[in-house]
């Protein structure tokens, strides 16, 4: 038996350590460990709940927007405060544009390099790549001159001997199986994707007043005054500038990204048999369409054992089924609960660090282990796409069918929906969700414009905090899955605050029942051709889009590896 330790998993934020035992070319046991801790809960105690979002958006460098949104939702929930329609639509547009940005970056800039061999792309024929592209879609940027130009650029870049962003790739690994022309087509889109993710970010910037940290939120609404004549507000001109950006994004997502993901998935069809892991799926509805959060554009809920017929929807911001189901276990995490060491509900949550050595059977991670009615659940775009299909959401079914049709054609054999329970399925589901978000962004834009046309300019309801204790939770279907913030407020000040984040659900260690978390379970039985170059392990871990900066509960600055650099000149 060989033991592999990958620490840190590269191309992610934060420190994730994965340990695997490998026997006869397969993973037989796995541990997922967060190696840093953070303490947003500690910082927020005693503060004004209206300020919380400004702090929570700092817990992660990737997910600033999502932590801001869900924080105001949690406080609004505690106050039973309604949010004006315009504010919902503006928030929804920020959420969808951010999600599209994140999904494009994940596929092209983070995950694709596990599957696409950039070095092989250098020797491909631009004519062949363009011809292949034409069989997949009508994308206008699959032309021979554009692909040749990108290939020349890549050759010049890698020819300098500095691989830069490509330095961490496993080029020439035996598990890299795409023909050179496919590699080149994907590499061309890798470079184009850099332009399109910037467009998505620009939409967030226009609405959020700034990026990377949006400035326009408030408990009770948004700070975007709507006045169609004033320069400093959300004007008709700005709204139409946003519409033009949305249309550009649509071309890339529907004509490049969806076909790429489907084709790469089909050429790695063997990966539909690996990486299922935990198949109880949890997601939440998002994009509220009313002021109270009882109707949503995108459905969500629980899909037990991957069985769509048993889907149980989550239906409102007051949903008791979601609220009462969440707990966090620390049996295998570096924390101690006062009293009994049993999983706690987030309202009762505690953040008391208790570090030990890395113990395979004991504590080994700074990430807690969340459970839903005492069971582990996988979260993320796959969980959400399955829930939306189960709920009969038409755009999701349409985009999923398109991915499966293209993949079936390329593979030459029918690929069923059940293929989604896999490493490659998680990547495919993320592309489907990206296309769905794009349609939602268009819808939300139209809803906002229509509502303003009716003469409704309201964007904010003033919050009033009562004496005594109140509790609230907010949730958001973030790019990596279910994000929830839980707060207890006493006399207008924060008494407790817990963030249960997507990467906690997926990257968490074993729980009170010693059941593996989704990362761990998905790694068992993964093939590993070469224990020295465990590309296959990275493929499965990266398919979750790991982002640990927020999953971990305190940053111990004393133990951080601060290196000495050259003294000031």
């Amino acid at each position, binding site marked *: 038996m060989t033991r592999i330790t990958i620490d840190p998993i590269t191309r992610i*934020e*934060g*420190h994730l350590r994965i340990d695997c035992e490998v026997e006869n070319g397969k993973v037989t046991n796995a541990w997922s460990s967060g190696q840093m801790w*953070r*303490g*947003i809960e*500690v*910082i927020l105690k005693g503060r*004004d709940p*209206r*300020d919380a979002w*400004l*702090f929570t958006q*700092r817990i*992660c*460098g*990737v997910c*600033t927007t999502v932590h801001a949104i869900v924080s105001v939702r949690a406080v609004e929930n505690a106050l039973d405060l309604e949010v004006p329609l315009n504010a919902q639509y503006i928030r929804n547009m920020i959420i969808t544009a951010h999600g599209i*940005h994140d999904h494009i*970056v994940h596929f092209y*800039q983070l995950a694709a390099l596990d599957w696409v061999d950039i070095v092989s792309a250098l020797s491909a024929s631009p004519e062949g790549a363009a011809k292949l592209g034409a069989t997949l879609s009508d994308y206008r940027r699959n032309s021979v001159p554009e692909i040749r130009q990108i290939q020349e*650029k890549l050759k010049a*870049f890698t020819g300098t001997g500095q691989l*830069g*962003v490509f330095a961490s790739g496993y080029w020439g690994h035996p598990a890299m199986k795409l023909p050179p022309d496919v590699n080149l087509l994907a590499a061309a889109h890798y*470079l184009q994707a850099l332009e399109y*993710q*910037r467009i998505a*970010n*620009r939409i967030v*910037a226009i609405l959020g007043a*700034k*990026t*990377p*940290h949006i400035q326009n939120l*408030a408990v009770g609404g948004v*700070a975007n*005054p709507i*006045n169609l004549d004033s320069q400093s507000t959300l004007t008709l001109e700005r709204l139409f500038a946003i519409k033009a950006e949305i249309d550009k994004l649509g071309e890339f997502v529907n004509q490049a990204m969806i076909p790429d993901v489907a084709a790469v998935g089909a050429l790695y069809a063997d990966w539909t048999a690996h990486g299922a892991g935990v198949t109880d799926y949890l997601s939440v509805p998002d994009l509220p369409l009313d002021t109270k959060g009882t109707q949503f554009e995108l459905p969500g809920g629980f899909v037990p054992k991957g069985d769509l017929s048993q889907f149980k929807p989550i239906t409102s911001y007051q949903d008791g089924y979601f609220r009462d189901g969440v707990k966090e276990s620390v049996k295998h995490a570096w924390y101690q609960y006062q009293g009994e060491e049993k999983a706690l509900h987030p309202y009762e949550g505690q953040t008391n660090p208790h570090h030990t050595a890395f113990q395979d059977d004991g504590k080994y991670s700074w990430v807690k282990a969340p459970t839903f009615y005492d069971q582990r659940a996988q979260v993320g775009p796959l969980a959400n796409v399955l829930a939306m299909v189960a709920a009969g959401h038409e755009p999701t079914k349409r985009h999923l069918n398109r991915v499966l049709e293209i993949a079936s054609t390329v593979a030459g054999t029918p690929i069923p929906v059940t293929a989604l329970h896999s490493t490659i399925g998680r990547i495919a589901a993320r592309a489907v969700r990206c296309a769905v978000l794009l349609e939602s962004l268009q819808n939300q834009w139209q809803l906002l414009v229509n509502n303003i046309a009716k003469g409704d*300019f*309201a*964007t*904010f*309801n*003033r919050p009033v905090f009562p004496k005594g204790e109140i509790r609230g939770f907010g949730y958001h279907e973030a790019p990596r899955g279910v994000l929830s913030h839980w707060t207890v407020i006493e006399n207008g000040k924060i008494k407790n605050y817990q963030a249960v984040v997507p990467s906690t659900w997926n990257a968490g260690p074993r729980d009170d029942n010693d059941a593996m978390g989704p990362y761990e379970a998905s790694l068992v039985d993964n093939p590993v051709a070469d224990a020295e170059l465990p590309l296959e392990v990275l493929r499965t871990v990266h398919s979750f889009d790991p982002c640990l*900066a927020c999953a971990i509960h*305190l*940053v111990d*600055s*004393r133990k*951080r*590896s*601060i*290196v*000495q*650099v*050259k*003294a*000031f*000149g």
Partner: protein
Amino acid sequence: MRVIVLGLGNILLRDEGVGVRVVEALAERYILPAEIEAVDGGTVGMDLLDTLAGCDHLLICDAVQTGAPPASVGRLANAEVPALFQTRFSPHQLGLSEVLATLILMEEAPAAITLVGVVPVDMELGAELSPEVTAAVGLAVETLVTELQAIGFRLVPSVSPAGDDENFSFSLTPCLLPAWEEENFKIH
């Protein structure tokens, strides 16, 4: 000419966030011409791509450990800067090195990069700077001003009730509630 003054760091870890605080102070104390944009980069990575693309001069302020005495202020320029950020010493810096590498690939990398660093004293959990580093903020701001002057910008101080350097009152509580929120925002 387009110049970005980028503050980096995690404001939840006291002095780790000094870069963000210095750039905030710069924007508060001086009138920045249209060519100069002050950016609060926090711990962000790829989200900065659009902001940094095609700028002529990137001026970064961040907490750096150099072996120099605590709370000292200094500068690094050009080739020294990317090398610094490739050495992993916190997640946000890894993010910036990827952004810079990606900008090179896109042929939109900044022509010049300068870093003004402040040596941290306390990076424990907390939203306030240490007293020593708070005292160094003024010097770091002036170092940025000198850098901007060297590339042709003579900044004019804003008329500010904060007073002179000696009495410079730096807001230790970040993220103050915006003033507008105290008003009823509903437009009838």
